[in-house]
């Protein structure tokens, strides 16, 4: 396990100007392929269901999780090892995903997205008959 992987990654790519100030972080994700869907799990600690926005547009899936500051402006910090800010990440989604049926849920700071495979992209098992 590399030590850098333990740190929250700050978004540094060129992004359009945002209306909320503060740093933006890239959530760590796992993407698992199952027979009938892709499962995306993203760590978004501090985000509530109402603060999560998922947009699918022109083959791009963008996750935005709003995370409010946990401390007032005037805080006496003894240690500050990580930053708190919104999570944003964009993925390219191929034709193989049925965008209309994407579902999402959040629990304990983990956002789970179900990306059902389009009928055409599903793996089919073809039975071999003996003649």
């Amino acid at each position, binding site marked *: 396990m590399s030590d850098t992987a333990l740190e929250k990654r700050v978004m540094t790519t060129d992004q359009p100007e945002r209306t909320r100030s503060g740093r933006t972080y890239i959530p760590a994700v796992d993407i698992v392929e199952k027979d009938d869907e892709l499962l995306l799990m993203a760590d978004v600690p501090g985000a509530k269901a109402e603060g999560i926005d998922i947009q699918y547009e022109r083959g791009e899936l963008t996750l935005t999780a709003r995370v409010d500051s946990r401390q007032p402006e005037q805080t006496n*910090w003894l240690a500050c090892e990580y930053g708190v800010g919104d999570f944003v990440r964009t993925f390219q989604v191929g034709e193989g995903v049925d965008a209309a049926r994407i579902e999402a849920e959040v629990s304990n700071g983990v956002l789970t997205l179900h990306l059902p495979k389009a009928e055409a992209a599903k793996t089919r098992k073809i039975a071999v008959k003996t003649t």
Partner: protein
Amino acid sequence: MDLVPWRNKRRRGDRDTGEHPLARLRDEMESVFERFFGNPWGTGRSPLLSPTAAFPQLDLTESDSDLTIRAELPGLRLEDVKLEVSGNCLRITGEKSAEREDQGRDYHYSERQFGAFSRTVQLPAAADPNKVDATYKDGVLTVKIAKHPDAKPKRIKVRNA
């Protein structure tokens, strides 16, 4: 999007060859120690001494009445985290068990952290280890430790003598 984990490539040991072999060996040894124990002026991060290498990362704040420790631990089950106070040390241990029992599944990305973790925080003398309250919400663990009432700042009046 850049999916390659960010990593600092510069190492002090990677120097041009051409020096005396012994000098090179010395440099190599130095760089091994620096990489391991951390070099305050170097670019590498130490796996042992750097606070950023520890997991979970902690935020520690102080108010008039209490100390608050916050850790981001998404996807934890309550029974998997343990808090202990012994003496003036608060120990957070636990194990984030992966939801991935079925190893046969096909992973495209695997960035999230799983496994056992442990952090020990030395509490300041003002903290009262008998009054600790811990909550877990939206993947964030919050531990509040009350301060001793006599540790709160007191105003001392200066009188004319």
